């Protein structure tokens, strides 16, 4: 795998259900949140969108070009 590109430095976390968002410096975010893989290459995550309804939440991670990098499905604990 090639080396990582520079990260823009911040990630926006959107709660689509509550219509809120916040931004965190990448230093405060786990590596596995800040980076993903697209086309076999490391890519910086710049936005995560959470959608919650009832017992289910989906977390969609996006690269700077708007492409979705991963989706995590969560269930109520």
């Amino acid at each position, binding site marked *: 795998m090639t080396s990582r590109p520079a990260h823009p430095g911040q990630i926006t976390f959107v709660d689509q259900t*509550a219509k809120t*968002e916040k*931004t965190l410096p990448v230093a405060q975010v786990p590596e596995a949140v800040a980076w993903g*893989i697209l086309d076999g290459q490391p890519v910086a995550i710049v936005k995560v969108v959470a959608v919650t309804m*009832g017992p289910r939440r989906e977390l969609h991670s996006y690269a700077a070009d708007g492409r*979705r990098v991963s989706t995590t*499905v969560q269930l*109520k604990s």
Partner: protein
Amino acid sequence: MKINRPQKPHAAASTKAKPPVAQPAPPASRGWSAKGAARPVRAAAALRPVDTHGGSTLAGTTALKPQQLQALLDGVSPMAERARLAKANLEATPEYAAASPEQKQQLLSQRLSSDLVVPGLVSADVAQLATAAARYAVTGPTLEANHEFPGKKTDADRYEVLIDGRSIPVYVPHDGAFDPPFHHRVEDAAKTLASIPAESRALVTQVSLDPVANPLDDFWSKTYGREMTSYMTCGADGKVDIYPFKTQGGTEYMAASLIHETGHAWSGAKFGGDLDGPAWAPWRDAVAKDGILPSQYASSSAAEDVAESTALYLSARDTPAFAEYRALYPNRFALLDQQFGVRP
């Protein structure tokens, strides 16, 4: 072909969708801000080449058209069964008895497009999927030392699930230890991969039955303010992680989630990430024209609507209910026909 290593008893998360509950807004003291209001960290704007979320939460339902009502009341799907019951209960009310014909039609339309009829989540009919499953074989395992599962590096057994001439590797911890204890087996993954539509299977390049819970769960709970447990992560590269879980259940959630994911994959590639952008206009128009939602979860955004509609379309495609769903969602299904090459 048999799996060489016997698998431990397993279980899965519950699939039963509960009615939606209102989500409290996170407290402002945690750095959240209402969308559109001033944000504590304005630099965020510079990081947003596209708006991936938009204001695209979908509104409820417009009045059902006669052919939609007919499809529901004459149908064979679980929705149709609920619709007939909802109609019977409505007709027993004094409000309905006193209503004019036009009002009755309106009341019926509202009732049949409500959560009494529309499910919380589209669920794959596992029994139906199984009857149409592709043939598969499982070989292995081969040992891979120090495999990097999310949250734990440990030796792994790699199995190969062979379907339609393609091999999909499935990883499990070599020591068979899972924490929390309930988990899917290799055979579950193989059966699910064989049973889901080919379009969904084509997206999967690897499955990992991870030994530990998602190590990001705490971060997500802190970030979004509600404690939840990860069931599955699907990467755009086709790698699927399935985490162990605390309660016993079935494997149907795996199939439903993978089919749902197909909708995100094709719509993201075709329409992009800006849900309010012009590329998404055809889907938004279809939603507006169809009115009724495929599930309550679909109301959360255009992206979830397309994922849920895709799940419904692909899982019902070879069933008697397909024509009924087409009558209910004609405009969405027309776009899905284009995507999946089906001629109605």
